[in-house]
């Protein structure tokens, strides 16, 4: 009968490794759950605040759009012109120059004055009087 090696014997109660492992995993899962929960709540709060922000911005945008449309309405422009003693008139027929053909101006813009003179002939302004 072999003698017991007393020095190798573990002192006190040893928790089995699987139990410890399970506890550790459970602990980690709990921590992960808590972390996710906190994170989820934080994200939720952020989404809510962004939603409110978006709604507020949309309200402001619509109000500004309404004001802008009122400002640029022809009746308002005429009213403002009258208030400032300004008047807009249509140009006289003789003051209107019409180009009856499109001209590639860039390709013709050279330093050669004769060519510029030629350009003015090509554009041939139409006078309708």
């Amino acid at each position, binding site marked *: 009968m072999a003698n017991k090696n007393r020095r190798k014997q573990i002192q006190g109660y040893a928790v089995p490794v699987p139990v410890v492992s399970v506890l550790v995993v459970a602990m980690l899962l709990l921590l992960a759950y808590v972390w996710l929960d906190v994170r*989820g*709540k934080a994200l*939720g*709060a952020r*989404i*809510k605040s962004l939603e409110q922000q978006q709604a507020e911005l949309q*309200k402001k945008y*619509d*109000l500004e*759009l*309404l004001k802008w*449309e*009122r400002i*640029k*309405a*022809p*009746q308002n422009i005429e009213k403002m012109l009258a208030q400032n003693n300004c008047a807009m008139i*249509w*140009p006289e*027929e003789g003051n209107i120059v*019409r180009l009856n053909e499109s001209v590639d101006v860039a390709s013709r813009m050279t330093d050669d004055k004769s060519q510029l003179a030629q350009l003015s002939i090509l554009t041939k302004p*139409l006078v*309708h*009087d």
Partner: protein
Amino acid sequence: MTEHKYQYRLFFVVLIVLGALNGLIARLVYLHFRFGEGVDRNVRIIETRRLERDLLVARGKIFDCRGNTLALDIVKKEICADPAVILSNTCAEAVAANIGRLLNVSPARIRERLNQPGRRFVYLGGYGRPVEEEQAAELENMKLPGLFMRDMMVRSYPRGNSMCHVLGYVNFDSERVGSAGIEQKWHKYLYGVHGLLISELDGRRHELYDRRLFELKPRTGADVTLTLDHYVQYVVEQALEKAVRENQASAAWAIVERVKTGEIMAMASYPSYDPNNFQNASPELMRNRCIGVNYEPGSTFKMTVIAAALNEKVVTSSQIFDCENGTWIYNRRPLHDFHPYGMLSVADIIKKSSNIGAAKVAVLLGQDKLYQYLRAFGIGRPTGIDLPGEEGGMLHPLPEWTSLSVTRVAIGHEVAVTALQMLQVLCTIANDGVLMRPYLVQQVAAPDGQILFEQHPKAVGRPIQTETAHEMKRLLARVTEEGGTGHRAAVEGYSVAGKTGTAQKAIPGGYSDTLNMASFTGFIPVDDPQLAIIVVLDEPKGAVHTGGVVACPVFGEIASQIVRYLDVPPSTTAVAEGKINDKIAGLSSPGKGL
């Protein structure tokens, strides 16, 4: 001994702590699983914490053809109150005084609304009556107990009265139904769908995002883009207002249409109303007269008869008719001309607007053919424009025509049209005989940009041949020359064609001697028609109130501005120089006549 004593103490402390913990656990379980006190308590808790809210959604916007916003939804505040809280705080007097001053209503009325201790909610400003931003801010600063504000969507029309008859308005009810104009006809696209949020609240009445049970996102309505141009509309509205003022007319209306496509660029009626305050407008003001008023067109209708006769080759433009020096007895009933004429060519019948000449042409054409052509031009049925409330005019079925009808219809009596129908006849002539369907809506687009509906020019008929249309254009151009009834419609640099009309108004038992409808319908320029315009004045009261005197200047004023705004090239052809069709002017070959 001592150790034992301490052991007992320790035991008791542990026991007490454990007992307390058990109590807490029991309470938690009780609260969590909602045991005890029956179902009512649980329901009450659930209801207290429950949040169920409609998510506001905007209707689609309405734009003009240049992208200007004509109608949009904005969020405003409406004032609400909890009478129970206000009365328990004995501050009803203060609330009534402040709200009364702010909303400019009697405090007694507010007090009356607040004096309902059993109620927890009342509107103080009235249902659907929002307050302005500044008023809302002032109210918030007052911090009155039991007073709170709720968001509400309000339809806003930045241009006020402008285009009111086309745009329509939206009702105050919860569904916010479009009740007139584009708002009504295109409601199914414009209407957004409200969202729904079901969630839970915390102790401070804030939503718990992680307890959100249901969320249906709101669906914004689609945007509608019209063919109207805000500036063209403005020009027309200004001209109509001026014309009504100067001629003391009871009303006036006008339409501008693109000849080749049928797009309506302006449709205005005066007097008008503000759709932002539609509840203060009378039904008469809300009527879109351009499509909702049938009237006897008078002489403008002659072009329909002459076009039909020319198309059937029953007459030629140079054919001479005896206009009987102003009075013609037909079937024992007299027919008069405004000015007496002797011999007139068909071209001059149009130019001088002779009733007798037009009636004789119609007799030659025959009532069967005349009726067929009128139907082909779309008289007697709605044009199908995308607006509600369009009248179809009035054209009696042929069996109901009397022996006189053919001569009366020829001069625009015994028949009724809307301004749009009359304009369609002219557009057909200007468009080489092709009748286009008039339309107002260019496209409908979802908020994500997806096109839900798009409208393109559509030909719906060809009542007359191209050659006839060309001939008619030349004849109608003479109306605006010197000596023609429509010379006041002339626009410098441009050739104009058209026809004047003055019709006595039908009253019970006959026609009024004093009340009439004056109109002018024309297109510009003649050589390449771009725009057709009709102007109608109801009951002008000047010394002379014919279409040529009161409606033509309005046409000229509108057309001269629009052609420049739209950059329509000026007329360069012989028509503009007054060298019109020598064949017509010469009247060299008299043909058969009555």
